[in-house]
């Protein structure tokens, strides 16, 4: 037996007590780790910021359209590199619950504002020549087992065709990597011209415009200039950085900053309270044992270290369980949401280390008071016969 084995043996002698201590710590860390994972998934905001893009929507609401003449006006603003526009198609495949993102994109400018995607020559030709051609991400292709040339029917919940049918038939024109195009992993790009020519209502409008600002220009100035131009028009605009635009979508899920603080507070309270109470309980319950160990040569500091090590092992165990649980949850969510960036829990090794550091720090802080109590305890008095 060595010291770590002694600690483990001590822990395993009261499995119910240990389990009941682990569970609340584990649950609180699950919450904490999930929040970290969700924040990570949204961390692409920073990458978006570096892309120097602005998103313009109708000031009233994103569901109110803007005129397709808007990009032409915006292009005239100094510092604007290129402008493209997008309309939300809002469709599903076969069943209403089989949803993914479909964007009608302005094909001549979209890939000047966003990174171009790599297509084979055949795919490129089809995308250029076939009005019904759509581009899809690799993930979407795998999900539905779609191949280039396949005919697919997407039912839009927003747009009807001129024949009053809301089932739109497209041809898979190309398959690309979502990372290349900075887009949702489950995305379909429809040609805006084709979409516009065939929709029953809303022709000549768009859902949002995306402006690429020149690298040497002040993005904030361009942002305010766009809104100033349209301030007194029929459709006043609201322009924000792309990251802020994405964040507004995230806020529909909840205020992550507030949730993080809330969960962190709960974690701190739970770990501190449980560490302190568990140690105080150990000192009271095991007074005789500690006294005997003291008699054979264990200093109070060493005894305190053993007790703290026991609590830290419990905390580390709880964190390991929590991490495993969240990894499982992450996989389940990924499968359920089919890789959507808005519903994702991303954890990396550094996060796991960070969680362990937080856990061990809190455990150590929670141990200070009981340790001080132990140092003041007169262990010798417990050694008297009959004590």
């Amino acid at each position, binding site marked *: *037996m*060595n*010291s770590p084995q*002694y600690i483990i*043996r*001590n822990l*395993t*002698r009261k499995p119910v007590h240990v389990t009941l201590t682990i569970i609340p710590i584990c649950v609180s860390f699950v919450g904490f780790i999930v929040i970290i994972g969700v924040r990570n998934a949204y961390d692409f905001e920073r990458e978006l910021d570096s892309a120097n893009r602005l998103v313009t929507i109708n000031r009233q609401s994103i569901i109110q359209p803007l005129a397709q003449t808007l990009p032409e006006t915006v292009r005239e603003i100094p510092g604007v590199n290129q402008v493209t526009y997008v309309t939300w198609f809002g469709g599903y495949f076969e069943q209403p619950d089989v949803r993914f993102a479909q964007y009608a994109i302005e094909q001549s400018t979209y890939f000047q504002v966003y990174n171009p995607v790599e297509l084979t020559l055949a795919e490129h030709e089809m995308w250029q020549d076939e009005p019904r051609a759509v581009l899809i991400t690799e993930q979407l292709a795998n999900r539905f087992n779609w191949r280039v040339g396949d005919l697919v029917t997407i039912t839009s919940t927003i747009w009807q065709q001129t024949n009053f049918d809301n089932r739109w038939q497209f041809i898979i024109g190309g398959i690309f990597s979502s990372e290349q195009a900075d887009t949702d992993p489950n995305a379909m790009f429809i040609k805006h011209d084709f979409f516009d020519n065939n929709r029953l209502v809303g022709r000549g409008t768009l859902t949002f415009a995306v402006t690429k600002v020149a690298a040497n220009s002040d993005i904030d100035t361009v942002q305010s200039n766009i809104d100033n131009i349209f301030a007194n028009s029929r459709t006043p605009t609201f322009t924000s950085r792309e990251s802020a635009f994405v964040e507004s979508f995230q806020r529909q899920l909840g205020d992550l900053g507030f949730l993080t603080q809330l969960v962190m507070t709960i974690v701190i309270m739970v770990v501190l309270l449980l560490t302190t109470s568990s140690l105080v309980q150990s000192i009271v319950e095991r007074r*005789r*044992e500690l006294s*005997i*160990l*003291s*008699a*054979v*040569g*264990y*200093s*109070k*500091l*060493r005894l305190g270290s053993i007790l703290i090590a026991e609590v830290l092992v419990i905390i580390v165990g709880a964190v390991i369980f929590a991490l495993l649980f969240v990894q499982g949850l992450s996989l389940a969510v990924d499968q359920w949401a089919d890789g959507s960036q808005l519903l994702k829990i991303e954890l990396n090794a550094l996060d796991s280390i960070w969680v362990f550091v937080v856990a061990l720090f809190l455990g150590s802080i929670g141990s200070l008071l009981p340790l001080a109590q132990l*140092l003041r305890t007169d*262990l*010798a008095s417990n*050694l*008297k*016969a*009959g004590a």
Partner: protein
Amino acid sequence: MLMYIQIQNVSKFYRKGANRVKALEKVNLDIGLNEFVALKGPSGSGKTTLMNLIGGLDTPDAGRVLIGGKEIVHGSDRQRANWRAENVGFIFQFNNLLSFLTAEQNVEIPLLLRRMSSAERKNKVKAVLKLVGLGDRLNHKPNELSGGQEQRVAIARAIVADPCILLCDEPTGDLDKESADEVLALLRTLKESFNKTILMVTHDQHASQVADRSIILNKGKLVIDQLHSCGKLT
């Protein structure tokens, strides 16, 4: 005889609520090397207090405790703990062993404080358990041992680090006569064959006869110091 333990004018007081209770008052006592001393007296006479002072578990309010001519370190708890680990082995009346560990592991505990390989520790523990007659009970937990066997494991733990002094607080108090005799015989062997200096707190007249000498405390004062003629089991 070379005086190994020297108690010089030692006084110790405890606080009990608002009162100051006298545990020992100006006690002077010399115990020789390899001597087996029985410490007797009524409850509250200061026996355990004296034992704890000699064992470095407590510090005197006045006077000095010298072991081998050197005053016991009255420094930090850590220094005193190190001193105990090197010099003293304790045996108590009951609940001596840690219930969740086997006999072997209980005996191994003092050795965890030393720089020793696992194999060295195991060999030493086995040898000591064999010495106390429990070589076949290594993997038994305290609840699988008789009272006498438990006490012998406690003795093994007390001697495994090879201290010079054994301090025993009522080691036979909870045992039947047969088991008590086994434990006393073992203590006697440790004195005679392994040159241990033994101080044994006891209420038992029979147990005290095994010692070389009896000291009686009353109300914190040493009242009788008596040498025995044979110091053997009768």
